[in-house]
């Protein structure tokens, strides 16, 4: 048994457990000798004990008829929901967290930009606004109520 075999065996015990049936077929065949030597070692016993504990978990029951019926009718139920429902489904599935975050960032940036531009504009009070230079230069017809 080589050092490389020992290392591979330890890796398998630590990742796939002590039952060679759970190992990749190629590894199982290649490490037959190493496995025989390792049986009874602390690493082998530790892996085997955990396997036994995991095997104590009950196996989930197969899908019942009611669930199978629900799964089988998904196409029909979705067809009944119609085009609007399908569009909503697509939109919902397209709304990834990243997309939503991007939209929120763009919206926030627009608000900040608006506030910044607004803050940079000089506020003018209507009472103090002097329009006389423009009014004096305007044509008289502008003040004629009869003009169209």
């Amino acid at each position, binding site marked *: 048994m080589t050092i490389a075999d020992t290392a591979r065996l330890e890796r398998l015990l*630590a990742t796939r457990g002590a039952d060679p049936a759970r190992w990749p077929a190629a590894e199982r065949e290649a490490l037959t000798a190493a496995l025989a030597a390792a049986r009874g070692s602390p690493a082998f016993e530790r892996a085997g004990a955990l*396997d036994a504990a995991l095997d104590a978990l009950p196996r989930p029951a197969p899908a019942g008829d009611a*669930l199978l019926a*629900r799964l089988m009718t998904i196409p029909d139920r979705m067809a009944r929901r119609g085009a609007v429902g399908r569009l909503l489904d697509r939109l919902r599935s397209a709304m990834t967290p990243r997309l939503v975050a991007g939209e929120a960032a763009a919206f926030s940036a627009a608000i900040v930009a608006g506030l910044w531009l607004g803050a940079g504009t000089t506020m003018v009070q209507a009472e103090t606004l002097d329009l006389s230079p423009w009014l004096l230069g305007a044509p008289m017809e502008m003040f004629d109520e009869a003009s169209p």
Partner: protein
Amino acid sequence: MKAPSRTGDRPGAAGAERDEALVARVADGNSIAYEQLVLRHADRFLALAERLLGERTEAEDAVQEAFGKLWTRAGSFDPDTARFTTWFYRVVANACYDRLRRRRRTQALPDGWDAADERPGADETIVGRQRAVAVRAALDRLPERQRLAVLLCYFEDVSNIEAAETMEISVKALESLLVRARKALRDRLAAGEERG
């Protein structure tokens, strides 16, 4: 409604259409191909969901959501990059992760939720049940990725390569998750035995 009969051909059976070919037909709106995939794989994906969530009703909901996605988004599956089962394990796991996150947001676990059943009983069945409760609790306390790695590789008997593809990580990263998960399980079970 009449109960569906389990007549789905196994993918390896002679003359059986490969999963990937069935998914291509599902993408074209073929409900017969969809039903074949349900009959072939509902049990295995339900088992993964139940082990991930530790609860049957939620597991059934997660599987239903996943098969709904199969029907509406089969076109997003690329048979050149993955096997159907690899892709669909990921879809099911994501549906379960969503539920686990919602559960964490809405409910805090009570103190001692992971303690083994301390009720007395000499019967071996009760001992076995207590052990299963302790293992279930130790599994539930693993980080999500470690738990999925153990469930795929130990219970679903998925190869390291396929499990790594399902989890979108390297084989080396998967093996690292498995080593840490198995060590954590051993430590927690040993600590529980010492307490008991």
